[in-house]
């Protein structure tokens, strides 16, 4: 038997004999499975969309996360720096440090926004507003008792009143808290003027609080000096406690008299109290050699707490020249200046600073705009009489 040799026919026959294979499933089940499978096919779409959304979120979130870390780093560095500076200032109350440095930052961004929103106006007091009144300037501590803010007002002086009487009378009318500053006046002291010795006598009661803590001592002495120097020609303050010479201060010991030097040669910066829209122009405690150094300092953030740069980039000076009592500032040709409140304040800070250096008028050359708020930039601008005018009714 040639079992191994297959003819084509035999093979075909064999193939035809191969068993019929049947699908034993119920057709209903098959149909049911069909629809399931159909749905299954599109099942990958949902995870696909989810993945795409996740990726999108990822790419959106990651850059903001980076930003945030950088920001907080920045912040940390700033805080550190300001702390160190604060330490060098030594006499400040250290407990308020941290709070204040954070407030400092909110103040910066705050001022810029607010300035664009409110209508343009000036802050200082000028010749034309004075009439026949007398200017009184009060140095009021800010809400954190870190800096002294000069606030000026106008009073009518009678023949028989001297400036100190007016000063004492008006002291009680100040609305410090309404202005975003701390309630400091009236002083718990009796002030009398000794015209023959050109001296102001300051008498405090025994239970006075001015000697408690380094901050309040400094504020008391500084505010007295500044109040007297900016309102009069008096050059000496005599201190007494309940009629006895000298006031006992915790840190300074007993002080009997203070010499008053004339104010001046300071740089003015912006200060905005927390939660307020007002901007004050506040001078630094340090004085500057010349006006150039002062202007240069005003472009950057000052060391003192709560103050912000007052010479905004739109005031880019090309040249500064002083002719007698006139300051001529040449503005860079490429400077862009908008007629907004921030620029008005900046100009006023420049004017006030110039006043400290003995300047009477300021002239801007090459100014990109002709008028800025109430100022006509094509003419000489007179320096203000006093900063931060607040009328009192």
């Amino acid at each position: 038997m040639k079992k191994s040799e297959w003819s084509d026919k035999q093979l075909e026959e064999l193939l035809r004999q191969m068993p019929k294979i049947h699908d034993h499933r119920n057709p209903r089940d098959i149909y049911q499975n069909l629809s399931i499978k159909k749905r299954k096919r599109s099942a990958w779409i949902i995870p696909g969309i989810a993945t795409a959304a996740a990726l999108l979120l990822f790419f959106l979130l990651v850059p903001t996360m980076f930003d945030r870390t950088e920001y907080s780093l920045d912040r940390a560095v700033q805080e550190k720096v300001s702390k160190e500076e604060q330490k060098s200032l030594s006499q400040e109350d250290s407990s308020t440090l941290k709070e204040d440095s954070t407030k400092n930052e909110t103040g910066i961004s705050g001022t810029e926004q607010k300035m664009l929103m409110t209508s343009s106006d000036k802050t200082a007091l000028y010749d034309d507003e004075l009439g026949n009144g007398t200017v009184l300037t009060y140095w009021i501590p800010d809400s954190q008792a870190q800096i002294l803010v000069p606030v000026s007002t106008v009073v009518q002086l009678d023949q028989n009143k001297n400036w100190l009487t007016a000063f004492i009378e008006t002291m009680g009318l100040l609305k410090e808290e309404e202005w975003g500053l701390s309630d400091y006046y009236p002083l718990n002291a009796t002030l009398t003027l000794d015209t023959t010795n050109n001296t102001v006598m300051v008498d405090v009661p025994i239970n006075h609080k001015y000697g408690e803590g380094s901050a309040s001592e400094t504020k008391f002495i500084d505010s007295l000096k500044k109040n007297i120097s900016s309102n009069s020609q008096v050059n000496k303050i005599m201190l007494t406690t309940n009629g006895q010479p000298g006031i006992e201060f915790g840190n300074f010991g007993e002080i009997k008299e203070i010499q008053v030097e004339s104010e001046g040669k300071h740089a003015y910066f912006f200060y905005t109290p927390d939660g307020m829209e007002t901007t004050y122009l506040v001078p630094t405690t340090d004085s500057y050699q010349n006006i150039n150094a002062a202007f240069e300092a005003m472009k950057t953030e000052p060391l003192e707490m709560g103050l912000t740069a007052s010479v905004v980039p739109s005031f880019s000076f090309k040249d500064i020249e002083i002719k007698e009592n006139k300051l001529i500032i040449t503005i860079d040709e490429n400077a862009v200046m908008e007629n907004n409140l921030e620029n008005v304040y900046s100009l006023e800070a420049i004017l006030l600073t110039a006043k400290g250096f003995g300047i009477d008028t300021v002239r801007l050359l090459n100014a990109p705009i002709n008028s800025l708020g109430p100022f006509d930039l094509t003419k000489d601008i007179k320096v203000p009489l006093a900063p931060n005018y607040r009328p009192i009714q």
Partner: protein
Amino acid sequence: MNSVFDELYQKYHHDVFQFLFYMVRNKEQAEDLVQEVYIRVFKSYHRFEGKSSEKTWLFSIARNVAIDSFRKQKGWKGRLLEKFDWSSSQVKDDYPIPEEIMIHKEEIKRIYQCLEHCTVDQRSVVILRFLNDLSITETAEALGWTEGKVKTTQHRAIKVLKKHMEMFNEKEGLDSEEVRVER
């Protein structure tokens, strides 16, 4: 239930299933693939123009489904390996002989195993022609070939089968050789 499905099921389900079974040589897989055939049929039923008969149209779909499943089985890994390993260029399956075949006589088992050695094209022709009883013309229509190509492929397939059937005999047919010697 869908009337189209009903009709197709009644007329062709078992033929299509049989074809797929012998193509992939696994019952479970054939069950999955027959579903796939229906899905494709429903997707393109509106495009069916009646140029060819419904039967050959179904078979051509079934064949494509089977070929796709071979590709999928190999996956990208398999395809990559194949590039480096020329010896295994033929798709081999490791499935054991299904129960349905096991219960039949020896020759059936052997020819089932020999079918494995045919190419996909050859196998398609053999199954369509002899198991599904399609004519040459119908087979040509289902495969989209000319009748001549069907004939030559069929011829070659038979040759391959014959060769392997004989190899089987040689391997285990020592006694039959001996018988020859004795004669």
